[in-house]
């Protein structure tokens, strides 16, 4: 019989709170599953259901299981962990759901319970700790890693490792990742570390703060640089707060909500004086907009987080809303667009990036069927669930039109995963961030002008 009775909800906050077999702090939100009437409209939207056809790997099945723990029918154990952690957290079900059930939020909350009940041990625990706690939150360590990777690429070591077959000692999916590693450049935060405000190139119309992201700034600093270029060209003074840190999305996805909260507080403080927080990574943007979900038990920080989330905007939406100069140089490129899950499903941003691309002269856009289907990257899912991620990537690649030269998107995780897809499936598309293309168009326009 369920422990979840009506009176439980009304108990004062000081009582020791549990919910059925959820025995740890930061309990899952029962209002989230109360919205689900088990209609099944979510099934076909879910990549893991498409692959397995199994209820426990579908959104409604997962909600049903998460609810069953609260009803005391299941325990938080290994078997429960499997379906909860096999979710990509891609949020496609949120788009499909007639009742707006926040499945992604529930999954993250359930993972929080699982990680408290069964902390990761062994090599999985070590890897998790290394990446999530020792690396991503520490920009200087990431930068050092970046320098190492740069040394690896520039010194000829990369060539040697690939040639000698030394690379084959790594697991297969890491080999795939090594193969597509982007060229490492100087992080934007390092470049502008002594600059308070990067001034607009024209008359200042707005002042915005920018989240540089952890992985983005090391692996894709050129995307960050493009973002600064595009913002300043369109009349924005750009501030890059020094105290900002990793957004915590990867931690929250992995069930480490405590570290998520610590990082969230740091970022809320770091961006305290900003009116607008511009993000170019869809996963980070969605996380920032949902910070308040982490503080359901802490009213003070909940309010602060809610206020903060109103200031957050994705770069494409921001440009769309505030206006931008249409580039004049012809790019002459045939391309397609991939909807990052946390942009399309997580933030409802679909048309704005496409409009930006279509405003660039000479861009021919080819429709990608199922463009808002997850590519399988899903944060570090491609590392933790390589089989499922590989199968999902395969069906994604089948939808990439053959004859395009570029695939554009708005999220670094997708960029890495799609690059693996291009490499693995013998394709030859260049993977770019939407803002990069806009920046290149501006640059081409400038160099044409200078040439005259």
């Amino acid at each position: 019989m369920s422990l979840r009775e009506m009176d439980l909800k009304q108990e004062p906050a000081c009582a020791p709170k549990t919910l059925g077999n959820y025995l740890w702090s930061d309990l899952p939100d029962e209002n989230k599953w109360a919205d689900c009437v088990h209609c099944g409209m979510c099934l076909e939207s879910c990549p893991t259901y498409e692959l397995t056809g199994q209820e426990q790997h579908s959104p409604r099945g997962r909600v049903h299981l998460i609810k069953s723990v609260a009803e005391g029918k299941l325990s938080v154990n290994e078997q429960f962990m499997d379906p909860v952690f096999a979710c990509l957290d891609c949020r496609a079900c949120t788009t499909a759901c007639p009742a707006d059930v926040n499945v992604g939020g529930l999954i993250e909350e359930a993972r929080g319970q699982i990680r408290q009940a069964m902390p990761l041990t062994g090599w999985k625990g070590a890897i998790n700790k290394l990446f999530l706690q020792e690396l991503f939150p520490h920009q200087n360590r990431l930068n050092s890693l970046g320098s190492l990777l740069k040394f690896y690429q520039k010194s000829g070591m990369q060539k040697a490792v690939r040639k000698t077959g030394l690379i084959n000692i790594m697991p297969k999916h890491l080999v795939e990742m090594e193969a597509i590693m982007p060229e490492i450049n100087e992080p934007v935060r390092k470049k502008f570390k002594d600059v308070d405000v990067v001034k607009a190139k024209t008359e200042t119309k707005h002042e915005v703060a920018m989240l540089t992201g952890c992985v983005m700034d090391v692996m894709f600093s050129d995307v960050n640089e493009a973002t600064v270029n595009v913002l300043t060209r369109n009349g924005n003074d750009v501030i890059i707060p020094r105290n900002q840190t990793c957004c915590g999305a990867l931690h929250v996805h992995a069930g480490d909500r405590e570290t998520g909260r610590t990082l969230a507080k740091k970022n809320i403080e770091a961006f305290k004086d900003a009116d607008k927080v511009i993000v170019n990574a869809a996963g980070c943007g969605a996380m920032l907009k949902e910070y308040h979900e982490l503080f359901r038990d802490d009213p003070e920080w909940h309010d602060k987080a809610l206020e903060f989330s109103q200031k957050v905007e994705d770069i494409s939406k921001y440009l769309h809303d505030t206006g931008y100069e249409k580039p004049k140089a012809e790019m002459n490129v045939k391309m397609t667009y991939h909807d990052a899950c946390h942009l399309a499903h997580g933030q409802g941003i679909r048309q704005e990036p496409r409009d930006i691309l279509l405003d660039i002269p000479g861009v021919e856009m080819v429709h990608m069927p199922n463009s808002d289907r997850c590519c399988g990257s899903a944060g570090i899912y491609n590392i933790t669930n390589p089989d499922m991620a590989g199968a999902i990537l395969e069906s994604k690649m089948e939808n990439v039109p053959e004859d395009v030269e570029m695939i554009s998107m708005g999220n670094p995780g997708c960029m890495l995963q799609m690059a693996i897809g291009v490499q693995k499936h013998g394709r030859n598309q260049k993977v770019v961030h939407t803002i990069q293309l806009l920046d290149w168009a501006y640059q081409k326009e400038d160099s044409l002008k200078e040439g005259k």
Partner: protein
Amino acid sequence: MAKKGIQSKDPHVLNLAKIVGYDPVRKSILYEKEDLLAYDCDGFTLHKHLPRVVVFPKNTAEVAAIVKYCHENDLPFLARGAGTGLSGGAIPLNGEVIISMVRMKKLLSVDFENRRAVVEPGFVNLKLTNSISDKGYYYAPDPSSQYCCTIGGNVAENAGGAHCLKYGVTTNHILGLEVVLPNGEIIEIGKDGVPDLPGYDLLGLLTGSEGTLGIVTKITVRILKNPEGKQTVLAYFDKVADGSKAVSDIISAGIVPAALEMMDKTAIEGVEAAAFPVGHPKDIEAVLLIEVDGIAAGLDEQINQILDVCKNNNVREVKAAQSEQERAKWWANRKTGFGAMGAISPDYLVQDGVIPRSRLPEVLKRINEISEEFGLRIANIFHAGDGNLHPLVLFDARIPGESERALEAGSLCLKVCADVGGTITGEHGVGIEKREEMRFVFTDEEIMAQTEIRQVFNPKNLLNAGKLFPSPGRCIEVKKEIAAAASK
């Protein structure tokens, strides 16, 4: 995530695993409680029971082998599609072996010349239309769950949909079936998709038999050419009685719209609070969604006639869809209506009564009285054109006694439908939910005659037992059982 090998001690699990094979990533057999729990109900959530095991066959031969095994070992079993059914047809009441058909999901062939297609049962309804629309064809039956539900499930329930007013329900679109009988034998009915074979109409018998006579493994369906033109209008009414009168008048004027849908005030509140709002006014009592299709030349005239009828019935406002996007938006709002109730209520029970259209105003009034009597809100979303009502009883299962009250209120709604000369289900099937209500429309002798037909196909009654018909003499106890289970 994958375990090494099968970890079960149940010999039946091990034997069934031999039939479907072992797949470490996608698992072709489920037997652990955590996985089985996800299969304890379908779209009808008031009754739950764990299956013994769930198997995922890839082809007809595997289905036949599983069925034969169950038959020989006296194991209860049933087939399941997407599990979107609303009457509990796929709920393993007796701890069944669930045979999930979702991995048999291929579109086998399309024959445009003869306007037919062959699909496997796990093929999703809407995918058929999506696969042939570029050639100008579509598959007509369009249940609201068509984004996810399987054609196999549609055959079992004889599913309807918004456009069945003009085009008919699933049975009107089935040309042939391959069926595994409850003893494992494979038969074909309507071979090569030639309709109207001489002899008894077995296709008609199998379609809508709710998975009690056999398991469908291949389906030949009729496909239709897209209508040349389509027009869609919304009509808002201040009084629900005016809306229902308009419905009745449209049909009696001799117009056959492709669809004629209605939602009442509570339903509008639900869909507007949910994911696909269209901005219906909040203070109206009824909205009609009317669609006409066919040869483009005649459409304006039909629409004008419909507008006249609406005006004669005090319509507040009518508007026509100005674009395909707008039309799609209106339909998404209507078709996600059931799920949308989650936005205004934690649980709902949907009913599926059918009445003569002319009795619509009085039946709606009576349903409203039931709502007040039981203190439960009832939203009405329905295919008004063919008199198929869907009263949605809104309740909260967490409040003690409320599930029972909802069941009782729902049953009374069906009684009202039966009493005015209608029936208890239009398209959702009887399943577990309406077994007892079968007595509203059939005598004991008539029910007995039907169970004797079941006996011919399913003599051991291992296939989906306990569905569709009331157990003789136990009606009252069964009703109590459901209520007791629901309150758990």
